[in-house]
């Protein structure tokens, strides 16, 4: 533990120290010497730990090098689409928004309350709102290469900025329903998100090292998927692993859960597009 640096030692929560019991004295885990990697200090803010802290050294290396990070294939697609005219109105994103840098800071506040629908909107919802209502174009499917590429490209403009979602005012009831989802046991295995991601970060669950289940790296390239994937895809995966019925990507349930998960991630740097096993 003493090698983990002051930020980690600063965690007073006894529960966390107990949970991190799988990390040996020398900072090693079944993944090797990951806790002695000086890079993790940029991914720990107060008592918050990004999934980077529990990732393997190999995926960290990939994430930190834009030429090695496979997600950048999708980012390039997003960049192309930004300037491409589409839809009945013959507009491109750039026609209204200008340079992509103008979107710096935009993504870290999502999901955000949307007046027009009276609910929460994830970044994907806003992109499709612009496409259907402002461009006269077809919406992109949630998990399509186009949507993944565009959300990765938009979030890249805010890389390193702290996640900063609001749960005040009209967002409150949606936050509460996301929180209820997080603590609800479900599936044949009868597990809730918190049992893995609050009670056991730092512990191996078979071949996986549990993290806090933060959302600051999505969309994320997973080696297992061989693809970039959305946070909602990850939710569906965590639901299916415990033999629970998943919800649809983009559903209110997953969007509210995203709000809760991003609120837990508040303060952590936006790392999208991250790389995981």
């Amino acid at each position, binding site marked *: 533990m003493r090698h983990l640096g002051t930020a980690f030692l600063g965690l007073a929560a006894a529960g966390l120290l107990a949970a991190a*019991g*799988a990390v040996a004295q020398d900072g090693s885990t*079944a993944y090797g010497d990951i806790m002695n990697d000086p890079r993790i200090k940029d991914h720990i803010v107060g008592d918050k730990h990004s999934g980077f802290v529990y990732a393997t050294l190999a995926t960290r290396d990939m994430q930190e090098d834009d030429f090695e990070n496979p997600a950048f294939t999708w980012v390039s697609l997003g960049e192309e689409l930004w300037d491409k005219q589409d839809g009945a109105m013959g507009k491109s994103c750039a026609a209204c928004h200008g340079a992509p840098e103008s979107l710096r800071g935009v993504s870290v506040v999502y999901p955000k309350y949307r007046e027009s629908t009276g609910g929460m909107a994830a970044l994907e919802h806003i992109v499709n709102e612009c496409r259907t209502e402002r461009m006269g174009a077809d919406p992109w499917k949630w998990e399509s290469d186009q949507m993944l590429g565009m959300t990765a490209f938009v979030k890249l403009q805010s890389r390193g900025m702290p996640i900063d979602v609001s749960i005040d005012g009209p967002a409150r009831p949606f936050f509460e329903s996301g929180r209820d989802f997080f603590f*609800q*046991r*479900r*599936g*044949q*295995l*009868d*597990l809730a998100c918190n*049992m893995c991601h609050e*009670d*056991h970060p730092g*512990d*191996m*669950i*078979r*071949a996986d090292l*549990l993290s806090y289940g933060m959302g600051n790296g999505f969309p994320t390239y997973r080696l297992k998927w061989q693809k970039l994937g959305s946070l909602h895809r990850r939710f569906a995966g965590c639901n*299916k692993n415990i*033999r*629970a*019925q*998943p919800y649809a990507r983009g559903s209110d349930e997953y969007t509210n859960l995203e709000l809760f998960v991003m609120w837990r991630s508040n303060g952590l740097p936006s790392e999208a597009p991250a790389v995981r096993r």
Partner: protein
Amino acid sequence: MRSKAITCALVVLGLAGAAASDARAGDLVEFFVVGNGIPEYLSGQPGDPERGRAVAIQRKKGNCLACHKMPIPDQQYHGEVGPDLAGVGSRMPESELRLRIVNPKIANPATMMPAFYRVDGLHRVGKAFQGKTILTPQEVEDVVAYLKTLTDDT
């Protein structure tokens, strides 16, 4: 079995009640909880420890290794969520091991460990698994028989 457990009243699990809301629950074999355990074989016959070991390893069956370290050195990955099961056959009597596998929530409602022989009281079970238990009564017995072999002197 400890004698004080035997003096406890026989409690029939609320399966009849559960059956009213979920007809399939009625398909479960009946079992009796006595004290902290289930004294009788779920399948009416003893289990086979070799098969139990395989069930504990298999990801689509017991997958006990997801959460527990076990004395199975040929398997690469062992979980750290629950206690090491080495020596558990010396620590716990058979009837308590059986209840642990059938439904540990009877003894500890807050436990993270799944109930391997239960279908009621679950939320949003995936379609393919609705009305089904994780293990069959014989698989439960096989696992119990295997755990019994994990004594301190092995």
